[in-house]
């Protein structure tokens, strides 16, 4: 059983994934449950075009990127340990500074 989820990138984060803002993906069958921690590794290996350091720092996202699951701040959901559910909508926002 694969796990369908929708990944979205905005605020400039989409520039790191071939300028595509929305990615409907199927996470492959996994021995353990898919978490945001393992998703980030999957994104690094499958979606990031180049320079992963512009998206990741260590095992988490770099400072300045917010992660939201179904429009809710991941910090309210356990951050990296959040267990991904079928059809979750996971949004990565790079914060804007311009004005």
């Amino acid at each position, binding site marked *: 059983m694969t796990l369908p989820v929708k990944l979205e990138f905005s605020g*400039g984060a989409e520039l790191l994934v071939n300028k595509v803002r929305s990615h409907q993906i199927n996470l492959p069958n996994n021995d353990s449950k898919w978490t945001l921690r393992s998703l980030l590794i999957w994104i690094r290996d499958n979606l990031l075009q180049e320079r992963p350091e512009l998206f990741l720092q260590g095992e988490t996202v770099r*400072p300045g*990127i917010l992660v939201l699951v179904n429009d*809710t701040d991941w910090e309210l959901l356990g951050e990296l340990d959040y267990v991904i559910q079928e059809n979750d909508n996971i949004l990565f926002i790079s*914060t804007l500074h311009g*004005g």
Partner: protein
Amino acid sequence: MADDDVKLLKEQLSRQKEEIEKLKSLLQDKLKLPDVFTSDNDDFPTTIPAVNQLDKESIARYSRQLILPEIGIRGQLLLRKTSVLIVGCGGLGCPAALYLTAAGIGQLGLIDHDEVEISNLHRQILHTEARINVQKSTSAAYACKQYDIVLDATDNVATRYLLNDGCVLAGKPLVSGSALRFEGQLTIYNYKGGPCYRCLFPKPPPPETVTNCSDGGVLGVVPGIIGCLQALEVIKIAAKIGRPCTQRLLLFDALDGSFKAIKLRQKKDNCEVCGSSPSITELIDYEQFCGTRATDKDKVLTILTPEERISVQDYQAIVENGEPHLLIDVRQPVELEICQLSQTINIPMNSLSKEETIKELKEKLIPQADRPKTSVFVVCRQGNDSQVAVKLLKEKLKQLPISIKDIKGGLKAWARHIDRSFPEY
């Protein structure tokens, strides 16, 4: 421009300023407009005269919003006694100032570090062409204390942290807006148990990941919309109506024509500035903290040695003498459409390190009998990226008998020193 011209313009400017001040005070007497303070005056407001009723003119002026039950006389008087500090008088700050003044906010403070530049005019509707290069004022820090609400309409990370800490320390809500390309973001920090900027972003983003409007571009109406929304949130806070955008982040996607509000964390107990045992109890050095300057203005990098660079004058001589060389422009294709030098090949920065790019380049640079050694020049908008590119190419092409230099100051220098008709953007 000659020094005399500058002097003349400055004199004209100060005369005009006096004239404007005179007109402003005349107008104020006539219309009883709210006092608009610009920080060139340095006298920040201390108190707003208490008013407990509206006069006839005010009633006429604000009648449309007075008949809204949510506002009414009560709300209008609350607006009248609220003071707001707008930091950043650019694409966000201008529309915000316009609507806050129109709504009858009691006092408005305006601060900006920037000078007004012509490239800003498309999104800064309060400035006119005559005011280009007017040095506005500096220093926001302690001004937060003097006002009831602070509006962050700045354009850089360092000032955003500064205003956040200033507002937390002064206990003031911070209505924060930002915009880039076709996107905008809006939230209120440090208000009603919601997070502050540091609760969300304890660490500043790495400088190389921060894109400003002068590099990334912005469609003027986008900050216009966000600035108007900031004014709206200020009015809601001041009149105590509705559901303020605290602990929520509003995302605006102009291309998609959609808004989205996302739920944010609460204020964090371990936050370094707004938490229960804060380590930041006074303002710090924010440029150092962020590793960037508190401006979105063009910074000048020096990565290469002088021998690895060539001036625009020397490059022009090479072109005029017909010396064979290869000119690589590392800007984005959309930028080459705006302007480019002749005989340019385009290799955008982001594809420079790709293997196929290097392979193609190597083929172009293989030594020929008639040119044992090729000169390569790299150019960009203002001479920063070109240095990074030279460093990278030197590494990738080190086996080849070539010399690689960047054109110092880029196309901006070309426009200023060689060809005055060449566009600057």
